């Protein structure tokens, strides 16, 4: 890994000013929050922005605002280590706080922000390598210099992997995100922020700034997050199951969202598993049946840690464990 390339560093005082600076420099500019993803990537020359716009001086982005109904608005610049111990989140949004705590290491979480984690770049073991290493494979399509996808050489698209721990769970919980752009502010469901492509993995316009994450009020739902990785710290998820289950007063499932992170370029909905649950109580048999249906949507590829087939084969076990935690 090299040292950082040279760039101009900006510290705008408002979100609008940040957006203006980004618009002014276009593709040569990038936003940075905690920098735990961007700076290492810059050291490997994945991105070499000439202008880096830090959001640390933008006011109001590092607070957790608890609303009357118990829902919360989490500022994008909130440190992950602050969120993982936030009493309201721990009490009412335990699955989310747990997912935050599963991210990387305590040191990284002291710098990393929730906004950065939600926008985390997709990852691939053919891409997240030094410049020299990538020279030896003549790069890949996720780099400007490359044209093929080494994971699936016949593929017209990039298969880099969605690797954020929080995305599967916030999508399952039907959270919303707030985006600030040149034309003002808009709020969209978190799941609409992402798309199934390793390169263009976000739907937002490049200059749009993610400012807040909204988690809906506690109600008749329960959520969970279960992570698969080799080591119990440090590692990105190679499977991250976010589950959220709504039940009626009889314990019958009325709605279920299951999202598989680390198993494709976005948090993939396990639709068939969800269908098994609706109208049923969460018995062991129902959970196991729902788990079995999760093997098909898990589109694991040989571009992360751990064996590709094994990751698919154990997906049902992890989905079942996530659902068991929603009981």
């Amino acid at each position, binding site marked *: 890994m090299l040292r950082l*390339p040279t760039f101009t560093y900006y510290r705008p005082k408002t979100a609008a000013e940040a957006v203006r600076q980004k618009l002014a420099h276009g593709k040569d500019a990038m936003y940075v929050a905690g920098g735990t993803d961007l700076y290492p990537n810059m050291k490997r020359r994945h991105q070499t922005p000439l202008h880096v716009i830090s959001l640390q001086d933008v006011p109001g982005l590092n607070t957790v605002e608890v609303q009357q109904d118990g829902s919360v608005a989490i500022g994008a610049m909130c440190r992950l280590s602050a969120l993982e111990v936030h009493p309201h989140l721990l009490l009412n949004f335990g699955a989310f706080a747990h997912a935050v705590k599963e991210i990387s290491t305590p040191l990284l979480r002291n710098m990393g922000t929730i906004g950065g984690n939600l926008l985390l770049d997709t990852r691939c073991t053919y891409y997240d390598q*030094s410049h020299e*290493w990538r020279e*030896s494979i003549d790069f890949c399509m996720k780099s400007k210099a490359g044209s093929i996808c080494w994971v699936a050489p016949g593929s017209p698209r990039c298969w880099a992997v969605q690797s954020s721990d929080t995305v599967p769970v916030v999508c399952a919980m039907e959270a919303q995100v707030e985006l600030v752009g040149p034309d003002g502010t808009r709020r969209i469901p978190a799941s609409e922020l992402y798309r199934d492509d390793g390169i263009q993995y976000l739907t937002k316009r490049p200059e749009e700034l993610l400012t807040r994450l909204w988690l809906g009020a506690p109600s008749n739902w329960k959520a969970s997050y279960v992570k698969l990785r080799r*080591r119990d710290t*440090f590692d990105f998820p190679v499977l991250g199951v976010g589950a959220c289950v709504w039940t009626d007063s009889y314990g019958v499932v009325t709605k279920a969202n299951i999202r598989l992170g680390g198993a494709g370029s976005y948090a993939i909905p396990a639709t068939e598993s969800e269908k098994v649950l609706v109208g049923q109580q969460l018995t062991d048999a129902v959970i196991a049946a729902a788990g079995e249906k999760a093997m098909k949507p898990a589109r694991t590829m040989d571009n992360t840690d*751990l064996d590709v087939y*094994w990751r698919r084969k154990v997906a049902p076990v992890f989905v079942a464990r996530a659902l068991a935690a929603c009981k």
Partner: protein
Amino acid sequence: MGLDESKSIPGVARPDAPWRHDAKKSELNVIGKAIRKIDARSKVSGLTKFADDLTLPRMLHMKLLRSTVAHALIKSIDVHKARAMSGVKGVLTGQDMPIPFGILPVSQDEHALCLDKVRFVGDPIVAVAALTEEQAWDACRLIEVEYELLQTIGSVHEAAATSDPRLHDYGVRGNIHRLENLEFGDLQDGFARAEHVREDTFFFEGNTHLPMEQHATLAHFDKDGKLTIWSSTQTPHYLHRALARVLHPLPAHHIRVIACPNGGGFGGKSDPFNHEIAAAKMSMLTGRPIKIALTREEVFFCHRGRHPVLMRSKMGVTKTGRITALDFQAYLDGGAYGSYGTASTFYTGALQTVTYPVENYHFRGARFFTCKAPCGPKRGHGTVQPRFAIEVQLDKIACDLGLDPAELRLQNLAPRDSLTANFLKIGSMGLGECIQKVIDGSGWKQRRGQREITADGRIRGLGLACSSYLSGAGLPIYWNGLPHSGVQLKLDRSGLVTVFCGSTDIGQGSDSVLTWIVGEVLGVDPLGIRVVTSDTDLTPVDLGSYSSRVTVMTGNAAMQAAERAREIIARGVAEHLLVPSSRLVFADARVFDSEDPQKGMSFMDAVIAAEARFGTIGTVGSYTPPKSPAKFRGGGVGPSPSYSYSAAVVEVEVDPLTGIYRVPKVWMAHDIGRALNAAVAMGQIEGSVYMGLGEAMMEEMAYRDRSHKGHRVFVHKIPSLLEYKSPSTMEMPDVVTYVVEDPDKNGPFGAKEVGQGPLLPMMPAIANAVFDAVGVRVDENPISFEKVFAALQSKKEGKDARFGPSAGADGVPQVDFGDSLKIKTPWQGGDGTAWNEPKREKKAAK
């Protein structure tokens, strides 16, 4: 062996010298105590200067352009644009340093920069020095290299099947680097007498050292024509020799190598490296100091780590588990260069015999060249892979025979003070006590095979394995009859004792070892002793920090030097106090009469008395290991002054649905001979547990082997600290450490090695524990979750409850080893020589 009286100057050592292995604990003031290391406070407060911390005025930064293809001829190198770039001060290519080098005299196959051929992705081609590191890196991107691609050799099977192209034009033939075929005793008779015979195939994937410190070098060729190199090396003496060779006609005595404190070595800094030599040459070219600090990716390309080894082991035993015959084959994937590979090959066969007696033993070893980063010595050098195979196989045999694996081993221990089938001389032998400690501590007898279920549905299992390791190699890397280690002592009228020694502290505490031994002999506080080490201008030669040799060899040299200093001082004091010198005691920084402790003087006054009487006080000590009775060709690898022993019980908890397991607890006992420092010895044992855990659970030097449009891409899969997985604190188990002390008469105060041995039982113990828990065998290391899962699936489908390499005839490469060298065992009346001269194929012509 021992002190050579004819060389002793002046006077004679005390009767209980030389090495005082039988000293009682109560007689020792320093040895065995948990004293902090001499450099501990500098290390933990960040004050220690590592090679990359050093800077000199006008220093330039160097980067290497490395091959992006796995195997090719270099047709042309165009450096014009790089040379013309602003800030660039020097460019070197292979032609500037055409003399080859290599750690072993038999494999001088490396060039500081590739001459005409590249052999793996990462092989260095061009060196560029510039005012900044970024400029040097940018300049490397402007260099155009034209290649003529050659067939990639990616495995031992491919290497065995490909006679052309060859990676090197030396070796046995084709891409076979070494073939060894040694037969001790009568195999046929051994198998005929066996009551049970097993044949198993194992694979041990390669892995790397992963030191925290990335290699760095600072080179300065000064205006007086002297070259100084500061480097993160474990072997300054060998680097000195390699520099003198390649930089010819620069005289060796104009070259000074200073080994900086190493931020971890583990064998990965034991070779002379291309970047070290290129930095020296670049300094000579530019007249300016040159710094190169490798990136983490480049450290993976330096490698010299654990060889991937495919093994087939056929073992014949009696009903009680006594090994009547062992036929062992090892196929080593050596990577692109020789490195220590010749020794590694022999080591895959050497130490099978020192734990349990093997009555008749046949070893075949083959090392191949492949287009991978070169393999070499990593902690446990070459003995780790066969130990995995043997210990797992013994577990299977115990299972077959219905014996307790611990009892099987306890009833078949190699006897102390004995010769093995392959003429290794065992001295002290504490393996029995080690096994007893770990089976008592873990509750082995009650808990094994119980398959307890944890609260989260995992199944518990216990596994046991043992091992042995050498306390330094009996022979040096290059043939010579000189001492392996030298120590000089300077005693000053201030009371200061300075120890000069060529040994290199790589974090294991070798600087401190010198102070404990000298401090014990001279009765002074070891923390007050000054240590000057690893500087070829100032210190006597020590061969280096490898092979677990330092405590025994520099320790014995230091002891001899200290005994001689003690003798001189004692004579001075005796004359001064009018007390016989034999009555004098050196303790608590005083020299006094044992019969009248009030009568005496401070150590400082004692030195003054001696200096007044004899002049400036300086002594030397040196050590040469005892001659080995193994006289056959190949018998030079394996002999050691003494062997350490380890036994481990490992507890695992396996998730039967996924194969995921954790290791909550490890009991590790190690026969260290004598612990010179209780705390540091335990630290080494715990460190070995950690490193072994990583090798067992996850570490592997995996390669990407892909083809695209007819072009084969063959490159290290994961050269980064994030993706080359090594355990975190979360994976580290509780470790119960037992230090077993069975003093050995060849060690200083009876000490044997501790730095490497306790790593070895970890991998087989985990494999055996997984079997105890869920009844499946993983005959392949690392024992990853996926493999446990695959074996469980196989068992569920009614197939072989095993994961591992093919046990069929195609499992190992087809290689003609030729006739074996036949050696009679000691119990057949053998004298350590071979009784036949096998026909050997002529070496392939160039």
